[in-house]
């Protein structure tokens, strides 16, 4: 048996090289166990707030009394893991600051109004707000595609029409009330009365930037899934987007700015998120150790 130092070194490299071939079921199993464990440990509140979330917060805060915020809630079960916390914290902020707002669901999913309604009704009760006076939910309007099939006008046309005359796009609200009868809507006709547009969905359409920010100069902010950030970062850089709430982390940052009495939905999810992210980094490091060990041990 050859026991020269060179052979020993090579066999060590061989053992480490097996890290590259780790069965994916082991990785998933460890990840699953770590995620379950992370829900049992005490919450670790976030300590830093990014400029994107702070910018949205500032834009909402600066809403004058005579204007409203247009909140487009176009998320459903598919993206509720991040969008629900974002929507909730935005609504909570506006109710706290007595900012009037109108909720629309333009184009993306007809399932959105129902999910938004649950949160709106719960928070309206908490902050003693009145429907029609403090906020309005207009419901779904088709635009672009439904169920992946192009069945209606392009989204840009609908957004343009909404900016010109909200009443023409929405003759009735989500509860089937005539929109002109709602006190808040009697002073809101079009984009002139809107201070800020915030679109909460998986991947907000860039048509909001073109047809609202580009054409009318009204600031637009997005609350989107984390995966979409690289696509929208350029619009933040150029000033076309007033701000962005980035996934669960963005919602947690916003919650910390709002100083909620109890940790919010996003803050509660950030501790498990941190656990699994660290674990993934560890796995990436192990994979690299295996890679370099294999290269060193290769003849």
């Amino acid at each position: 048996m050859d026991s020269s130092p060179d052979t020993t070194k090579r066999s060590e490299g061989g053992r480490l090289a097996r890290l590259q071939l780790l069965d994916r079921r082991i990785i998933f199993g460890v990840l699953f166990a770590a995620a379950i464990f992370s829900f049992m440990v005490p919450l670790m509140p976030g300590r830093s707030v990014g400029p994107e979330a702070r910018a949205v917060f500032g834009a909402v805060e600066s809403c004058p009394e005579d204007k409203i915020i247009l909140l487009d809630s176009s998320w459903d079960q598919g993206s509720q893991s991040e969008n629900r916390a974002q929507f909730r914290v935005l609504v909570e902020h506006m109710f706290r600051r007595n900012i009037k707002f109108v909720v629309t669901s333009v184009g993306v999913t007809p399932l959105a109004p129902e999910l938004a309604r649950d949160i709106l009704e719960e928070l309206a009760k908490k902050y003693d707000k009145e429907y029609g006076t403090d906020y309005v939910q207009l419901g779904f309007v088709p635009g672009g595609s439904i169920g992946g099939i192009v069945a209606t006008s392009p989204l840009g046309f609908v957004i343009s029409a909404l900016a010109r005359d909200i009443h023409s796009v929405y003759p009735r609200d989500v509860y089937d009330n005539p929109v002109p009868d709602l006190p808040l809507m009697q002073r809101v006709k079009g984009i002139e009365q809107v201070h800020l547009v915030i679109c909460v969905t998986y991947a907000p359409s860039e048509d909001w930037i073109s047809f609202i920010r580009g054409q009318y100069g009204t600031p637009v902010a997005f609350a989107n899934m984390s995966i979409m950030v690289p696509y929208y970062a350029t619009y933040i850089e150029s000033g076309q987007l007033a701000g962005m709430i980035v996934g669960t982390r963005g919602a947690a940052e916003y919650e910390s700015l709002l100083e909620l009495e109890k940790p919010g939905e996003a803050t509660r999810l950030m501790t498990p998120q941190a656990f699994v992210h660290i674990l993934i980094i560890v796995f990436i490091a192990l994979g690299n150790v295996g890679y370099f060990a294999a290269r060193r041990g290769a003849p």
Partner: protein
Amino acid sequence: MPPDAYTDPIQIAEVVVATITFLIVMSYIFKDNSAYKMLSHILLGAAAALSIYLIWTQALKPNWWDPVSKAIKTLFGDARPTWELLWILCLVPGLMWYTLYSKKLSWMSRIVFGLFIGLGAGLAFKNYFLLIMPQVKDSFRPLVVVGDGGFDIKGTIKNLLFTGTLVTVLIYFIFTFRMEAPLVHRGRTFGRWTIMICFGTLFGYTVMTRMSYFLERLNYVKEELFTKVLGL
């Protein structure tokens, strides 16, 4: 049991079904199995049915069927026919799409295709100017930033990095000319590195989104099933 515990059997069934569905979907990452396949087929069937329902209830019925049927009724009553009867004419271009399936009549479908392409092109043209031109304008940045308090080193570094990345990535994507000058070659390499960093960022955010999906569902099982149903 907590005060907000579920007592309604329908609510309990909803949570149990959601949890079982979640576990079946997650079982796929360990091994493909018949429960996962069955669930995929159920979801596909439900999604197809939902699409048909949504197209009818959200697009066709309110925008076409309701006004037309209302206007047709006026033809048989005492009321004067309304202009909404004209919506019936939309049926003609609508049906022209389906001539695609006939070799003899497929030329008719090209008319509506052309109409939609024109519509899309017009919108895209406007969109381009409103969306892209501000980006182009923003790309022209001063390489030395001087603010109210004098020389701004942070702003200068940021603009240098931005402009350097912009130029080198553009060089990387030039295929038309053969450019072998050392400066261009190094610029191309730098451009490739910045693109790789961008891909890394994209991948990081992808992981974050996927983990959010997973953790939100785990949280649902913990809060809904264990707390509100089982009272643990």
